[in-house]
């Protein structure tokens, strides 16, 4: 398995998953295509990256563990495993791995000759240290914490071999260990107090953190002693081409795009659909579409309380909103409508369009059946005096403006059939608060994880119980023993076919229960200037890696 193929993974996987058109559109519209072959790489130059995400409070993705952290951490941290072009998990820092018969013991052997940027050698001790770091409550990890939830303890067998003792078989463990949130950091570095480690985590990646000017930029510089776990002969040099990356935070979408257009920055993320579209229309800008794995972007209907505890009402709502019209107008065909629980990059996802076609007439009749027959002064439906009203806390940090507008449209079209949708725009903290207090009927909570096992996190009844962080992922409040059973088995079987089949059944239950309204993949669009070449390589969670990227002179 070679690195540059990894670079092409996105193209091929794009073809495989039917989003080629977008990617090609993005690439062909740029003066050079997204992959590294079109021009001979030149070394040097510092790439300026402008992120629209809120500046992370900690550069160590173990702490908390959100996508902005993954985006930046992918440059200086590497994981034990990664994903190849077919979406298959393959070793990265790890050289090989095997699991015991009972599936309760996982042995991982590391590659040789890989060092951290603090000079220390990568040893099995690192695996132990990192997993323990993730599980230490003081780390306050949520994503990584859940990912290694089943690991009871880690034994260091020798310099390069560690043994993970599991509480239950977990065929998603390798997927979990391929994510940046479980990336391997220097044990020595982890010893430091959290503030220090947050400021400059130490990994094995192609870049390292040089400095962090808060609110301004994270300055990354090339890791001169970078050893690619998988050597790539086609490359002129093992280390990254770029001297460094200036990782800036420009929350204003318009400003960010202006900066890109005027060449002040080279790459922007969270590109606005309209700007993507205009870039596609013969702009010189390149476009990289890297849908995130795991769950699709969807609305979850809180089935634990009225009115959505009634399946009829849930379906009624889903039928009442015209998602497609909104997506076309707001996303300019940059986002493809999804009818699945899982991201389009997940092989095991199933989708069922029929369930989600807008049908106001049906919505009305369903509501009539459900007994919401009265109409109050404002034209909303009501049942024994109580208005058919649903609260919809929206996190302004997680929903881009276009998505917020989409929700506003839902609000409007749902009103037509008699739903009152109370949209509450909240900052992340208050949003978590609202969820923690079950003060929601509708919510859009994107969840990124490699592999279908995300389904367990999202729909297993255990996930209705808050994790120590106070967060619970099963926002739809699905409590279905049959489903629980399917998800548990699916995660423990060692037979791929059976696994796929079990997950299919599970998804069917959730879809047909109208617990969720799938919208589209978790959008992950990057725009870059014509001078930027070699974009395309990403981690298993679709966060771009800039090892192959260079700036054309």
């Amino acid at each position, binding site marked *: 398995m070679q690195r540059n193929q990894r670079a092409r993974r996105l193209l091929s996987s794009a073809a495989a998953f039917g989003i080629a058109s977008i990617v090609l559109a993005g690439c062909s519209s740029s003066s050079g295509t997204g992959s590294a072959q079109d021009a001979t790489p030149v070394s040097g130059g510092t790439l300026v990256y*402008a992120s629209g995400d*809120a500046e992370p*409070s*900690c550069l160590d993705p173990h702490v*908390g563990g959100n996508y902005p952290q993954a985006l930046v951490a992918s440059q200086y941290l590497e994981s034990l495993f990664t994903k190849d072009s077919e979406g298959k998990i393959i070793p990265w820092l790890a050289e090989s791995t095997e699991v015991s018969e009972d599936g309760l013991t996982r042995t991982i052997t590391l590659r040789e000759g890989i060092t951290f940027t603090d000079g220390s050698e990568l040893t099995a001790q690192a695996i132990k240290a990192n997993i323990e770091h993730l599980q230490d*409550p*003081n780390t*306050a990890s*949520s994503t990584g914490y859940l990912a290694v939830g089943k690991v009871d303890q880690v034994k260091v067998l020798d310099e390069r071999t560690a043994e993970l003792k599991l509480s239950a078989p977990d065929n998603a463990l390798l997927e979990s260990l391929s994510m940046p949130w479980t990336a391997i950091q220097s044990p020595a570095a982890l010893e430091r107090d*959290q*503030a220090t480690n*947050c400021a400059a985590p130490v990994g094995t990646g192609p870049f390292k953190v040089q400095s962090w*000017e*808060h*609110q*301004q930029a994270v300055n990354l510089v090339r890791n001169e002693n970078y050893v690619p776990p998988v050597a790539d002969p086609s490359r002129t040099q093992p280390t990254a081409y770029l001297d460094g990356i200036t990782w*800036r*935070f*420009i*929350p*204003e979408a*318009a*400003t*960010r*795009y*202006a*900066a890109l*257009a*005027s060449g*002040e*920055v080279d790459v922007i993320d969270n590109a606005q659909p309209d700007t993507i579209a205009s870039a596609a229309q013969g702009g010189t800008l390149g476009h990289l579409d890297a849908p995130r794995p795991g769950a699709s972007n969807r609305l979850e209907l809180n089935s634990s309380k009225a009115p959505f505890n009634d399946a009829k009402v849930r379906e009624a709502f889903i039928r009442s909103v015209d998602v497609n019209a909104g997506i076309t107008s707001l996303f300019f065909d940059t986002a493809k409508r999804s009818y699945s629980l899982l991201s389009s990059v997940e092989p095991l996802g199933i989708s069922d369009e029929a369930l989600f076609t807008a049908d106001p007439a049906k919505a009305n009749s369903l509501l009539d059946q459900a007994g919401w027959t009265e109409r109050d002064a404002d034209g909303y439906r009501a049942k024994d005096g109580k208005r058919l009203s649903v609260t919809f806390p929206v996190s302004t940090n997680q929903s881009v403006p276009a998505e917020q507008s989409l929700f506003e449209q839902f609000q409007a079209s749902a009103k037509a059939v008699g739903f009152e949708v109370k949209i509450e725009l909240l*900052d*992340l*903290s*208050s*949003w*978590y*608060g*609202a*969820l*923690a*207090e079950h003060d929601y009927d509708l919510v859009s909570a994107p969840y990124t994880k490699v592999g279908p096992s995300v389904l367990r996190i999202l729909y297993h009844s255990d996930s209705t119980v808050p994790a*120590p*962080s*106070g*967060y619970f992922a099963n926002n739809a409040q699905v409590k279905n023993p049959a489903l629980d059973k399917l998800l548990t088995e699916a995660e423990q079987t060692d037979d791929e076919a059976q696994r796929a089949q079990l997950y299919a059944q599970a998804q069917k239950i959730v879809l047909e229960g109208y617990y969720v309204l799938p919208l589209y993949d978790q959008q992950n669009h990057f725009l870059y200037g014509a001078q930027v070449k070699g974009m395309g390589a990403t981690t298993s969670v679709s966060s771009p890696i800039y090892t192959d990227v260079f700036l054309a002179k």
Partner: protein
Amino acid sequence: MGTLGWAARKLGGALVVLWLVATAIFIGIRLIPGDPAEAIMGGPGSQASAQALAAARAEFGLDQPAAVQYLMFLGKLARLDFGTSYALKRPVTDVMAEVLPKTIILALLALAAAWALALLFAALAMRANRFGAWLGGMVEIVAAAVPHFWLGAVLIMVFSSALGWLPAVDNGTAAGLVLPVLTLALPLAGFLTQLMRDSLATAMSSQFALAARARGESRLAVFWRHGLRHASLPALNLTGWAFSSLLSGAVVVEVIFARPGLGRSLLSAVLARDIPMVTGLALFSALVYILVMALTDAVQRAIDPAGAAS
């Protein structure tokens, strides 16, 4: 009154003001419904761990009676210890040390620019005919009525996206400062001009202006020696106000132009309910304001010891 006494009184006043602000904030924190510890750590859903909450309780003495808490609170502030921003996981004073200079420089530049523009306007208005004066009046009023956030966006669209003359975001260079400073300066200039034109007109038509002319001074000399002094006084009176309005504008400008600074920090601190941060920033901006006021006071005493013109 003697300069020393003046300084002493200023200092006393400043301390009282800071104390009042601090007290208000203290009360404010207590007014937040729910567990104050949680509030300090960023409200519900901030996912503050039990340890963190315990730490906060200890740090702010939340288990103690209110009076004790109050004294502890003041004590910390007196020692310039604003605690640690839970959101940024860094000492508030560090953050302050980073952002405050940036914002103050921005504000000062904007202030200077606004003054320059205002003086220019006022001078032009003197020469202008009736229509010109009317037009000038309109321009300055409209300028004063333009919201920063709108002006900023428009400037970016025109000078950065369309013309590509100036960078949209702060890139450390002087060019990066032009648009933000303009965004802040233009509305303020509108206000200042409104003030200056009136007082300038009165000054230029006054007896002493006539006397100066009778002495053989040229119109320009009279404008420089007399007109400007009198014109600038009322505007100078406002410098404190102007500066604080600039700090307000800085919030928006720093967001739009992606500049680090007090305003942006405060905004994110507010969004994250980062109370230690908010407290620190509020007190610091109060401090800045007080300093500026003292400064302008001093300048006024220099220009106009007898307070003749005010």
